[in-house]
Protein backbone atom coordinates (compact mmCIF):
# COMPACT_ATOMS: atom_id res chain seq x y z
CA UNK A 1 0.00 0.00 0.00
CA UNK A 2 1.41 3.43 -0.97
CA UNK A 3 1.98 5.51 2.14
CA UNK A 4 -0.09 8.68 2.34
CA UNK A 5 2.90 10.86 3.23
CA UNK A 6 6.43 9.81 2.48
CA UNK A 7 9.69 11.52 3.29
CA UNK A 8 12.48 10.42 0.96
CA UNK A 9 15.99 11.41 2.04
CA UNK A 10 14.75 14.78 3.27
CA UNK A 11 17.43 17.14 4.55
CA UNK A 12 16.88 20.57 6.04
CA UNK A 13 19.32 22.98 7.59
CA UNK A 14 18.95 26.41 9.12
CA UNK A 15 22.28 28.14 8.71
CA UNK A 16 24.94 25.82 10.06
CA UNK A 17 22.51 23.66 11.97
CA UNK A 18 21.20 20.54 10.25
CA UNK A 19 17.77 19.76 11.63
CA UNK A 20 16.78 16.90 9.34
CA UNK A 21 19.35 14.67 7.69
CA UNK A 22 18.38 12.13 5.05
CA UNK A 23 15.06 11.45 6.72
CA UNK A 24 13.03 8.52 5.43
CA UNK A 25 9.59 8.26 6.94
CA UNK A 26 6.29 6.80 5.77
CA UNK A 27 2.94 7.74 7.21
CA UNK A 28 0.04 5.48 6.40
CA UNK A 29 -3.48 6.59 5.67
CA UNK A 30 -6.07 6.34 8.40
CA UNK A 31 -3.59 5.96 11.24
CA UNK A 32 -2.29 8.11 14.06
CA UNK A 33 1.46 8.63 13.87
CA UNK A 34 3.24 10.32 16.74
CA UNK A 35 6.59 12.04 16.30
CA UNK A 36 8.42 12.27 19.60
CA UNK A 37 11.83 13.46 20.67
CA UNK A 38 13.61 16.00 22.82
CA UNK A 39 12.77 19.69 22.63
CA UNK A 40 14.26 21.48 19.66
CA UNK A 41 15.23 18.40 17.61
CA UNK A 42 13.07 19.37 14.64
CA UNK A 43 9.71 17.68 15.17
CA UNK A 44 7.73 20.81 14.27
CA UNK A 45 10.03 21.32 11.27
CA UNK A 46 9.03 17.88 10.00
CA UNK A 47 5.38 18.73 10.43
CA UNK A 48 5.76 22.01 8.53
CA UNK A 49 7.37 20.15 5.64
CA UNK A 50 4.29 17.96 5.30
CA UNK A 51 1.97 20.89 4.64
CA UNK A 52 4.46 22.86 2.55
CA UNK A 53 5.25 25.63 5.03
CA UNK A 54 8.89 24.64 4.67
CA UNK A 55 10.70 23.17 1.67
CA UNK A 56 13.52 20.64 2.07
CA UNK A 57 17.05 21.54 1.02
CA UNK A 58 17.28 18.12 -0.61
CA UNK A 59 15.14 15.02 -0.87
CA UNK A 60 11.48 14.71 -1.70
CA UNK A 61 8.16 14.57 0.06
CA UNK A 62 5.40 12.55 -1.54
CA UNK A 63 1.71 12.85 -0.91
CA UNK A 64 -0.30 9.95 -2.28
CA UNK A 65 2.65 9.10 -4.47
CA UNK A 66 2.99 12.65 -5.90
CA UNK A 67 6.08 14.76 -5.27
CA UNK A 68 4.69 17.92 -3.65
CA UNK A 69 7.54 20.06 -5.00
CA UNK A 70 6.39 19.30 -8.54
CA UNK A 71 2.74 20.17 -8.05
CA UNK A 72 1.19 23.17 -9.77
CA UNK A 73 -0.34 26.00 -7.74
CA UNK A 74 -3.84 24.62 -8.26
CA UNK A 75 -2.81 21.09 -7.30
CA UNK A 76 -1.06 22.41 -4.18
CA UNK A 77 -4.21 24.27 -3.14
CA UNK A 78 -6.32 21.15 -3.71
CA UNK A 79 -3.93 19.12 -1.59
CA UNK A 80 -3.92 21.71 1.20
CA UNK A 81 -7.69 21.50 1.36
CA UNK A 82 -7.26 18.02 2.75
CA UNK A 83 -5.00 19.24 5.54
CA UNK A 84 -5.56 20.91 8.85
CA UNK A 85 -2.81 22.15 11.13
CA UNK A 86 -2.79 22.94 14.80
CA UNK A 87 0.14 25.19 15.68
CA UNK A 88 2.23 24.84 18.80
CA UNK A 89 1.62 28.46 19.77
CA UNK A 90 -2.01 28.25 18.65
CA UNK A 91 -1.71 31.05 16.01
CA UNK A 92 -5.16 32.42 16.88
CA UNK A 93 -6.20 35.70 15.28
CA UNK A 94 -6.15 38.30 18.04
CA UNK A 95 -8.64 40.62 16.39
CA UNK A 96 -11.28 37.89 16.06
CA UNK A 97 -13.46 36.34 18.72
CA UNK A 98 -13.24 32.66 19.60
CA UNK A 99 -16.31 32.00 17.43
CA UNK A 100 -14.80 33.85 14.47
CA UNK A 101 -11.50 32.02 14.86
CA UNK A 102 -13.16 28.62 14.80
CA UNK A 103 -15.49 29.55 11.92
CA UNK A 104 -12.77 31.16 9.78
CA UNK A 105 -11.65 28.13 7.71
CA UNK A 106 -15.18 27.18 6.66
CA UNK A 107 -16.40 30.78 6.34
CA UNK A 108 -13.60 32.00 4.09
CA UNK A 109 -13.63 28.93 1.92
CA UNK A 110 -17.43 29.18 1.64
CA UNK A 111 -17.94 25.52 2.35
CA UNK A 112 -21.29 25.94 4.13
CA UNK A 113 -24.26 28.29 4.50
CA UNK A 114 -24.41 30.63 7.47
CA UNK A 115 -26.74 28.55 9.63
CA UNK A 116 -24.68 25.44 8.92
CA UNK A 117 -21.54 27.29 9.98
CA UNK A 118 -23.20 28.33 13.24
CA UNK A 119 -24.30 24.74 13.85
CA UNK A 120 -20.85 23.31 13.18
CA UNK A 121 -19.10 25.87 15.36
CA UNK A 122 -21.53 25.30 18.22
CA UNK A 123 -21.12 21.52 17.93
CA UNK A 124 -17.36 21.64 18.12
CA UNK A 125 -17.49 24.32 20.84
CA UNK A 126 -19.70 22.07 22.95
CA UNK A 127 -17.40 19.10 22.43
CA UNK A 128 -14.41 21.11 23.62
CA UNK A 129 -16.29 23.07 26.32
CA UNK A 130 -15.85 26.39 24.58
CA UNK A 131 -19.50 27.45 24.35
CA UNK A 132 -19.16 29.98 27.21
CA UNK A 133 -16.25 31.85 25.66
CA UNK A 134 -17.32 32.10 22.02
CA UNK A 135 -17.74 35.86 22.33
CA UNK A 136 -14.33 36.45 23.93
CA UNK A 137 -11.06 37.40 22.26
CA UNK A 138 -7.89 35.27 22.52
CA UNK A 139 -6.27 37.81 24.84
CA UNK A 140 -9.15 37.32 27.29
CA UNK A 141 -8.81 33.55 27.67
CA UNK A 142 -6.27 31.25 29.28
CA UNK A 143 -3.53 29.32 27.47
CA UNK A 144 -5.43 26.07 27.90
CA UNK A 145 -8.58 27.57 26.39
CA UNK A 146 -6.56 28.92 23.47
CA UNK A 147 -5.27 25.41 22.87
CA UNK A 148 -8.81 24.08 22.69
CA UNK A 149 -9.85 26.88 20.33
CA UNK A 150 -6.92 26.01 18.06
CA UNK A 151 -7.95 22.36 18.19
CA UNK A 152 -11.55 23.26 17.33
CA UNK A 153 -10.35 25.31 14.36
CA UNK A 154 -8.25 22.37 13.16
CA UNK A 155 -11.15 19.92 13.38
CA UNK A 156 -13.98 22.02 12.00
CA UNK A 157 -13.20 21.48 8.30
CA UNK A 158 -13.41 17.66 8.71
CA UNK A 159 -10.00 17.27 7.08
CA UNK A 160 -8.46 14.07 5.80
CA UNK A 161 -5.07 14.77 7.34
CA UNK A 162 -4.57 16.63 10.59
CA UNK A 163 -1.18 17.74 11.82
CA UNK A 164 -1.06 18.43 15.54
CA UNK A 165 1.90 20.34 16.94
CA UNK A 166 1.92 19.78 20.69
CA UNK A 167 -1.87 19.67 21.06
CA UNK A 168 -1.87 19.15 24.82
CA UNK A 169 0.96 21.34 26.07
CA UNK A 170 -0.34 23.67 28.74
CA UNK A 171 -3.46 21.66 29.49
CA UNK A 172 -4.26 20.06 32.83
CA UNK A 173 -4.13 16.23 33.02
CA UNK A 174 -7.91 15.85 32.73
CA UNK A 175 -8.12 17.97 29.62
CA UNK A 176 -5.01 16.33 28.14
CA UNK A 177 -6.72 13.01 28.45
CA UNK A 178 -9.91 14.48 26.96
CA UNK A 179 -8.02 15.92 23.96
CA UNK A 180 -6.21 12.67 23.22
CA UNK A 181 -9.46 10.77 23.66
CA UNK A 182 -11.22 13.16 21.28
CA UNK A 183 -8.46 12.85 18.67
CA UNK A 184 -8.59 9.06 18.92
CA UNK A 185 -12.39 8.80 18.86
CA UNK A 186 -12.73 11.25 15.98
CA UNK A 187 -10.02 9.40 14.10
CA UNK A 188 -11.88 6.13 14.49
CA UNK A 189 -15.15 7.75 13.49
CA UNK A 190 -13.93 9.75 10.48
CA UNK A 191 -10.84 7.73 9.63
CA UNK A 192 -8.59 10.76 9.12
CA UNK A 193 -4.83 10.50 9.21
CA UNK A 194 -3.26 12.23 12.18
CA UNK A 195 0.36 13.17 12.77
CA UNK A 196 0.97 14.32 16.32
CA UNK A 197 4.11 15.98 17.60
CA UNK A 198 4.14 15.61 21.34
CA UNK A 199 6.14 15.16 24.52
CA UNK A 200 3.29 13.44 26.33
CA UNK A 201 4.62 9.96 26.86
CA UNK A 202 3.37 7.41 27.66
CA UNK A 203 -0.12 8.91 27.05
CA UNK A 204 0.46 9.16 23.30
CA UNK A 205 1.38 5.48 23.15
CA UNK A 206 -2.24 4.60 24.00
CA UNK A 207 -3.71 6.30 20.97
CA UNK A 208 -0.90 6.24 18.38
CA UNK A 209 -0.64 3.44 15.88
CA UNK A 210 2.95 4.32 15.05
CA UNK A 211 5.74 6.18 16.78
CA UNK A 212 8.70 7.92 15.14
CA UNK A 213 11.54 9.03 17.39
CA UNK A 214 13.60 11.94 16.07
CA UNK A 215 17.06 12.65 17.44
CA UNK A 216 20.24 14.14 15.95
CA UNK A 217 18.42 14.93 12.69
CA UNK A 218 17.54 11.27 12.14
CA UNK A 219 14.66 8.90 12.80
CA UNK A 220 16.11 6.46 15.32
CA UNK A 221 12.94 4.46 15.79
CA UNK A 222 9.85 4.02 13.69
CA UNK A 223 7.32 1.40 14.61
CA UNK A 224 4.48 0.55 16.94
CA UNK A 225 4.29 1.87 20.51
CA UNK A 226 4.91 -1.55 22.05
CA UNK A 227 8.25 -1.78 20.26
CA UNK A 228 9.55 1.51 21.60
CA UNK A 229 9.12 0.35 25.17
CA UNK A 230 11.67 -2.38 24.60
CA UNK A 231 13.89 -0.49 22.16
CA UNK A 232 17.55 -0.96 22.94
CA UNK A 233 18.84 2.26 21.36
CA UNK A 234 20.28 4.12 24.37
CA UNK A 235 18.93 7.59 23.62
CA UNK A 236 15.43 6.22 22.92
CA UNK A 237 15.54 4.15 26.08
CA UNK A 238 16.73 7.18 28.06
CA UNK A 239 13.83 9.23 26.70
CA UNK A 240 11.11 6.65 27.22
CA UNK A 241 12.15 5.08 30.52
CA UNK A 242 11.25 7.96 32.88
CA UNK A 243 7.67 7.80 31.63
CA UNK A 244 7.42 4.35 33.13
CA UNK A 245 9.23 5.20 36.33
CA UNK A 246 12.35 3.49 35.19
CA UNK A 247 10.54 0.25 34.22
CA UNK A 248 9.64 -0.34 30.60
CA UNK A 249 6.19 -1.66 31.36
Amino acid at each position, binding site marked *: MTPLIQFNKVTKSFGQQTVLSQIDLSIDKGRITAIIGKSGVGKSVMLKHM*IGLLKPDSGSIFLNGKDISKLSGKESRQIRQKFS*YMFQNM*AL*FDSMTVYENIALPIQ*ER*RLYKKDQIIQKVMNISNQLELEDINHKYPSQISGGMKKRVALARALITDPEIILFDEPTTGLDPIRKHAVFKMISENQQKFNYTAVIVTHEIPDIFYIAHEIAFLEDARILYHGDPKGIETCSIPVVKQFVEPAYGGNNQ
Partner: protein
Amino acid sequence: MKNNPIKQFCQILGYALISFIYELGHITTFFIESFIRLFQYPFQYTKWMHQMYFIGVKSISVVCLTALFTGMVLGLQGYYTLVKFGSEGLLGSAVALSLIRELGPVLTAIMIIGRAGSSMAAEMGIMRISDQIDALYTMNINPKRFLISPKIGASIISFPLLTAIFDVVGILGGYMSGVVMLGINPAVYIKGMENSVLMTDVSGGFIKSIVFSIIVSTICLYQGYYTHLRSDGFGAKGVSISTTVAVVMSCVIVLIADYVLTSFLL
Protein backbone atom coordinates in the same frame (compact mmCIF):
# COMPACT_ATOMS: atom_id res chain seq x y z
CA MET B 1 45.97 40.96 -4.55
CA LYS B 2 45.05 40.65 -0.90
CA ASN B 3 42.69 43.17 0.66
CA ASN B 4 42.47 45.28 -2.44
CA PRO B 5 40.35 48.21 -1.25
CA ILE B 6 39.04 49.00 -4.73
CA LYS B 7 37.97 45.41 -5.24
CA GLN B 8 36.34 45.35 -1.82
CA PHE B 9 34.54 48.60 -2.53
CA CYS B 10 33.28 47.28 -5.85
CA GLN B 11 32.11 44.08 -4.18
CA ILE B 12 30.21 46.00 -1.51
CA LEU B 13 28.68 48.32 -4.09
CA GLY B 14 27.77 45.44 -6.35
CA TYR B 15 26.20 43.50 -3.52
CA ALA B 16 24.21 46.55 -2.39
CA LEU B 17 22.98 47.17 -5.94
CA ILE B 18 21.96 43.57 -6.49
CA SER B 19 20.17 43.52 -3.11
CA PHE B 20 18.38 46.74 -3.98
CA ILE B 21 17.20 45.47 -7.35
CA TYR B 22 16.12 42.16 -5.82
CA GLU B 23 14.19 43.99 -3.13
CA LEU B 24 12.58 46.29 -5.67
CA GLY B 25 11.49 43.32 -7.76
CA HIS B 26 10.17 41.52 -4.70
CA ILE B 27 8.14 44.55 -3.58
CA THR B 28 6.75 44.99 -7.09
CA THR B 29 5.62 41.37 -7.36
CA PHE B 30 4.17 41.63 -3.84
CA PHE B 31 2.10 44.63 -4.93
CA ILE B 32 1.00 43.10 -8.24
CA GLU B 33 -0.04 39.81 -6.59
CA SER B 34 -2.02 41.64 -3.91
CA PHE B 35 -3.55 44.18 -6.30
CA ILE B 36 -4.79 41.50 -8.70
CA ARG B 37 -6.57 39.75 -5.84
CA LEU B 38 -8.57 42.92 -5.18
CA PHE B 39 -10.71 41.96 -8.16
CA GLN B 40 -10.98 38.27 -7.33
CA TYR B 41 -14.47 36.98 -6.66
CA PRO B 42 -15.96 36.92 -4.04
CA PHE B 43 -15.29 40.57 -3.28
CA GLN B 44 -14.37 41.32 0.28
CA TYR B 45 -16.71 44.25 0.86
CA THR B 46 -16.75 43.96 4.65
CA LYS B 47 -12.99 43.94 4.93
CA TRP B 48 -12.71 46.92 2.57
CA MET B 49 -15.16 48.86 4.75
CA HIS B 50 -13.26 48.00 7.90
CA GLN B 51 -9.97 49.08 6.40
CA MET B 52 -11.40 52.29 4.97
CA TYR B 53 -12.71 53.09 8.41
CA PHE B 54 -9.32 52.38 9.98
CA ILE B 55 -7.13 54.07 7.36
CA GLY B 56 -9.52 56.81 6.22
CA VAL B 57 -12.05 57.74 8.85
CA LYS B 58 -9.73 57.43 11.81
CA SER B 59 -7.09 59.58 10.09
CA ILE B 60 -9.49 62.50 9.49
CA SER B 61 -8.76 64.22 12.78
CA VAL B 62 -4.97 64.13 12.41
CA VAL B 63 -5.23 65.20 8.77
CA CYS B 64 -7.53 68.11 9.66
CA LEU B 65 -5.27 69.26 12.47
CA THR B 66 -2.19 69.12 10.26
CA ALA B 67 -4.01 70.82 7.40
CA LEU B 68 -5.31 73.62 9.59
CA PHE B 69 -1.94 74.59 10.95
CA THR B 70 -0.18 74.05 7.64
CA GLY B 71 -2.66 76.42 6.01
CA MET B 72 -2.29 78.95 8.80
CA VAL B 73 1.51 78.87 8.58
CA LEU B 74 1.34 79.19 4.79
CA GLY B 75 -0.99 82.14 5.19
CA LEU B 76 1.30 83.78 7.71
CA GLN B 77 4.54 83.20 5.85
CA GLY B 78 2.93 83.96 2.52
CA TYR B 79 1.53 87.25 3.70
CA TYR B 80 4.83 88.59 5.04
CA THR B 81 6.63 87.56 1.86
CA LEU B 82 4.04 88.89 -0.58
CA VAL B 83 3.53 92.16 1.27
CA LYS B 84 7.14 93.14 0.41
CA PHE B 85 6.12 93.15 -3.25
CA GLY B 86 2.70 94.63 -2.65
CA SER B 87 1.15 91.36 -3.81
CA GLU B 88 -0.64 90.23 -0.67
CA GLY B 89 -3.75 89.87 -2.79
CA LEU B 90 -2.20 86.76 -4.29
CA LEU B 91 -2.19 85.02 -0.92
CA GLY B 92 -5.28 82.97 -1.78
CA SER B 93 -3.64 81.70 -4.98
CA ALA B 94 -0.37 80.93 -3.23
CA VAL B 95 -1.96 79.01 -0.38
CA ALA B 96 -4.39 77.10 -2.60
CA LEU B 97 -1.83 76.15 -5.23
CA SER B 98 0.79 75.11 -2.68
CA LEU B 99 -1.68 72.94 -0.88
CA ILE B 100 -3.45 71.42 -3.86
CA ARG B 101 -0.34 70.72 -5.92
CA GLU B 102 2.17 69.76 -3.24
CA LEU B 103 1.54 69.99 0.44
CA GLY B 104 -1.86 68.35 0.44
CA PRO B 105 -0.81 65.03 -1.12
CA VAL B 106 2.62 64.91 0.55
CA LEU B 107 1.64 65.87 4.08
CA THR B 108 -1.48 63.70 3.94
CA ALA B 109 0.71 60.76 2.94
CA ILE B 110 3.18 61.48 5.72
CA MET B 111 0.45 61.76 8.35
CA ILE B 112 -1.08 58.47 7.21
CA ILE B 113 2.36 56.83 7.20
CA GLY B 114 2.77 57.81 10.84
CA ARG B 115 -0.70 56.71 11.85
CA ALA B 116 -1.86 53.88 9.64
CA GLY B 117 1.33 52.84 7.86
CA SER B 118 3.24 52.04 11.03
CA SER B 119 0.20 50.25 12.38
CA MET B 120 -0.14 48.11 9.25
CA ALA B 121 3.55 47.19 9.35
CA ALA B 122 3.40 46.29 13.04
CA GLU B 123 0.19 44.30 12.63
CA MET B 124 1.62 42.25 9.76
CA GLY B 125 4.87 41.75 11.62
CA ILE B 126 3.15 40.47 14.73
CA MET B 127 0.91 38.21 12.67
CA ARG B 128 4.01 36.85 10.95
CA ILE B 129 6.00 36.10 14.10
CA SER B 130 3.00 34.53 15.83
CA ASP B 131 2.38 32.18 12.86
CA GLN B 132 -1.01 33.70 12.06
CA ILE B 133 -0.02 34.20 8.42
CA ASP B 134 1.19 30.59 8.23
CA ALA B 135 -2.11 29.54 9.81
CA LEU B 136 -3.99 31.19 6.94
CA TYR B 137 -1.83 29.29 4.47
CA THR B 138 -2.57 26.00 6.19
CA MET B 139 -6.31 26.81 6.06
CA ASN B 140 -5.95 27.26 2.28
CA ILE B 141 -6.76 30.95 2.63
CA ASN B 142 -4.47 33.12 0.53
CA PRO B 143 -2.83 35.46 3.08
CA LYS B 144 -2.25 38.23 0.55
CA ARG B 145 -5.89 38.24 -0.54
CA PHE B 146 -7.14 38.02 3.04
CA LEU B 147 -4.82 40.53 4.68
CA ILE B 148 -3.05 42.69 2.12
CA SER B 149 -5.51 43.32 -0.70
CA PRO B 150 -8.22 45.00 1.43
CA LYS B 151 -5.63 47.35 2.96
CA ILE B 152 -4.21 48.33 -0.43
CA GLY B 153 -7.70 48.85 -1.84
CA ALA B 154 -8.77 50.91 1.16
CA SER B 155 -5.60 53.02 0.90
CA ILE B 156 -6.19 53.77 -2.78
CA ILE B 157 -9.70 55.00 -1.94
CA SER B 158 -8.84 56.81 1.29
CA PHE B 159 -5.75 58.75 0.28
CA PRO B 160 -7.37 60.99 -2.36
CA LEU B 161 -10.37 61.64 -0.09
CA LEU B 162 -8.12 62.60 2.81
CA THR B 163 -6.04 64.75 0.47
CA ALA B 164 -9.19 66.59 -0.55
CA ILE B 165 -10.07 67.16 3.10
CA PHE B 166 -6.52 68.38 3.74
CA ASP B 167 -6.74 70.84 0.86
CA VAL B 168 -10.06 72.29 2.01
CA VAL B 169 -9.07 72.58 5.67
CA GLY B 170 -5.66 73.98 4.69
CA ILE B 171 -7.28 76.67 2.54
CA LEU B 172 -9.54 77.51 5.47
CA GLY B 173 -6.46 77.73 7.68
CA GLY B 174 -4.88 80.14 5.23
CA TYR B 175 -8.11 82.14 5.26
CA MET B 176 -8.01 82.30 9.04
CA SER B 177 -4.49 83.62 9.23
CA GLY B 178 -4.59 85.78 6.09
CA VAL B 179 -8.07 87.22 6.23
CA VAL B 180 -9.19 86.99 9.83
CA MET B 181 -5.89 87.74 11.53
CA LEU B 182 -3.95 89.78 9.01
CA GLY B 183 -6.83 91.64 7.39
CA ILE B 184 -6.66 90.63 3.73
CA ASN B 185 -9.88 91.23 1.83
CA PRO B 186 -11.81 87.92 1.90
CA ALA B 187 -13.15 88.41 -1.62
CA VAL B 188 -9.60 88.95 -2.89
CA TYR B 189 -8.44 85.80 -1.13
CA ILE B 190 -11.21 83.65 -2.58
CA LYS B 191 -11.18 85.25 -6.02
CA GLY B 192 -7.43 84.83 -6.27
CA MET B 193 -7.81 81.20 -5.49
CA GLU B 194 -10.66 80.80 -7.97
CA ASN B 195 -8.68 82.41 -10.79
CA SER B 196 -5.47 80.48 -10.34
CA VAL B 197 -6.50 76.96 -9.42
CA LEU B 198 -7.14 74.85 -12.50
CA MET B 199 -8.61 71.38 -12.85
CA THR B 200 -5.15 70.13 -13.86
CA ASP B 201 -3.82 71.22 -10.47
CA VAL B 202 -6.55 69.31 -8.67
CA SER B 203 -6.16 66.20 -10.83
CA GLY B 204 -2.40 66.37 -10.45
CA GLY B 205 -2.79 66.40 -6.69
CA PHE B 206 -5.09 63.41 -6.82
CA ILE B 207 -2.77 61.48 -9.12
CA LYS B 208 -0.01 62.06 -6.58
CA SER B 209 -2.22 60.92 -3.73
CA ILE B 210 -3.08 57.68 -5.54
CA VAL B 211 0.57 56.97 -6.30
CA PHE B 212 1.48 57.74 -2.69
CA SER B 213 -1.26 55.41 -1.45
CA ILE B 214 0.25 52.55 -3.45
CA ILE B 215 3.76 53.37 -2.25
CA VAL B 216 2.84 53.69 1.42
CA SER B 217 0.56 50.68 1.67
CA THR B 218 2.88 48.42 -0.33
CA ILE B 219 6.04 49.32 1.55
CA CYS B 220 4.48 49.20 5.02
CA LEU B 221 2.66 45.92 4.40
CA TYR B 222 5.71 44.38 2.68
CA GLN B 223 8.01 45.20 5.58
CA GLY B 224 5.60 43.70 8.10
CA TYR B 225 4.73 40.67 5.97
CA TYR B 226 8.36 39.65 5.53
CA THR B 227 9.54 40.45 9.05
CA HIS B 228 10.63 36.84 9.50
CA LEU B 229 13.20 37.21 6.71
CA ARG B 230 15.06 40.01 8.46
CA SER B 231 18.65 39.22 9.33
CA ASP B 232 19.06 42.18 11.69
CA GLY B 233 16.40 41.25 14.23
CA PHE B 234 14.00 38.49 15.22
CA GLY B 235 10.72 38.34 17.09
CA ALA B 236 9.61 41.60 18.70
CA LYS B 237 12.84 43.34 17.70
CA GLY B 238 12.24 42.30 14.10
CA VAL B 239 8.74 43.79 14.20
CA SER B 240 10.08 47.03 15.64
CA ILE B 241 12.80 47.27 12.96
CA SER B 242 10.29 46.45 10.22
CA THR B 243 7.95 49.17 11.46
CA THR B 244 10.75 51.75 11.62
CA VAL B 245 12.05 50.81 8.18
CA ALA B 246 8.51 50.91 6.78
CA VAL B 247 7.91 54.44 8.05
CA VAL B 248 11.29 55.85 7.04
CA MET B 249 11.35 54.18 3.64
CA SER B 250 7.77 55.25 2.89
CA CYS B 251 8.52 58.87 3.78
CA VAL B 252 11.68 58.98 1.69
CA ILE B 253 10.12 57.30 -1.33
CA VAL B 254 7.04 59.53 -1.14
CA LEU B 255 9.30 62.58 -1.30
CA ILE B 256 11.32 61.15 -4.19
CA ALA B 257 8.13 60.15 -6.02
CA ASP B 258 6.74 63.62 -5.41
CA TYR B 259 9.65 65.17 -7.26
CA VAL B 260 9.38 62.67 -10.13
CA LEU B 261 5.62 63.13 -10.46
CA THR B 262 5.89 66.91 -10.26
CA SER B 263 8.41 66.94 -13.08
CA PHE B 264 5.99 64.95 -15.24
CA LEU B 265 2.87 66.87 -14.27
CA LEU B 266 4.17 70.39 -14.61
